[in-house]
């Protein structure tokens, strides 16, 4: 009988272990899935009420040219010219959760430099007005250059300059847009001045074309 008792105990022990193993929990998992739908749109900003633009001249450091019908760019030399342009994006009514799919600055070149030049677009990070002078422009804050673009040497050409990354950041941060400086960092040469039509002109004014999502 004693042997029998030992045998029964052993069988229960082995069987019990197996039964415990069969009921071990596999685990607990988290799972969530969802979607977000975007709304697409476009917005074109132009015109004198929505555009502030001017150029500054190192050879006339205290003068402003905010009422001129042209915007001018010239590399370092005896005379340096920088163009400034900015737009009021409030008419686009973009929320900060939105963003730019693309943003293009359109400038009408006339007359063109000859030969063509490569110009640099730099975001301006502090405020300025249409009465900006060369001296004042030296005290503004600037970001890293956004892009460069080639003017070509054809008069009467509309140039499309991508500024998507800057406009996307502006929409997200909901900060004021101070626009861009356009300069020529190349070597001075004959025929090196680029001239664009300003917002004061009757046609071919600067435009900012934005495709956005929200």
């Amino acid at each position, binding site marked *: 009988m004693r042997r029998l008792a030992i045998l029964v105990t052993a069988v229960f022990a082995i069987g019990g272990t197996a039964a415990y193993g069969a009921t071990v929990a596999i685990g607990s998992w988290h799972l969530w899935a969802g979607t977000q*739908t975007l709304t697409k749109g476009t917005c074109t900003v132009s015109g004198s009420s929505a555009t502030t633009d001017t150029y500054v001249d190192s050879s006339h450091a205290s003068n402003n040219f905010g009422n001129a019908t042209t915007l001018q760019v010239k590399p370092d030399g005896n005379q340096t010219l920088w163009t400034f342009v900015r737009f009021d994006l409030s008419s686009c009514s973009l929320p900060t959760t939105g*963003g730019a799919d693309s943003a293009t600055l359109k400038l009408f070149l006339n007359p063109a430099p000859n030969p063509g030049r490569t110009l640099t677009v730099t975001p301006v990070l502090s405020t300025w007005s249409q009465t900006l002078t060369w001296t004042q422009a030296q005290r503004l804050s600037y970001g890293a250059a956004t892009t460069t673009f080639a003017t070509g040497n054809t008069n009467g050409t509309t140039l499309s300059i*991508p500024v998507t990354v800057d406009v*996307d950041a502006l929409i997200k941060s909901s900060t004021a847009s101070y626009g861009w400086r356009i300069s020529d960092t190349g070597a001075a040469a004959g025929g090196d001045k680029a001239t664009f039509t300003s917002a004061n002109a009757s046609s071919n004014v600067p435009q900012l074309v934005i495709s956005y999502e929200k």
Partner: protein
Amino acid sequence: MKTLSKTLGFVVVLAAVFASCAAAATLAIGSASLAAGSVTVSSCGVSSLVATRNVDNSGNVTQVNVTGIPTACSGETLSVTLTGAGNASVGGGSTTIGSCAPTCAATVTSLGGTTSAANVNGYSFAVTGQ
């Protein structure tokens, strides 16, 4: 002797019963017949997510930023799919949600190729973890 035989018979029946249990314990995890158990599937507290994306100057998506993730999801995996026309996938990736408070934010930077933001009509999210 008769008593011993009955007892042995009882032992044999007991062994057979527990042997069945032991056989169940050796079922393969991948078996199609694995239906019993105590697997619990729930959310880590997410009710909705909102994403924004960054673009380069050419308008291509460089990263997707997801905010408002509950802290209980820390350590779990966030998968984001960029969806285009017809809800077709036009890119996506995943990342591990880090530790954070009061809510988590996650950034997916590897999106499986170049995707124009103009072609992205929405996002699909999945948060998985254990």
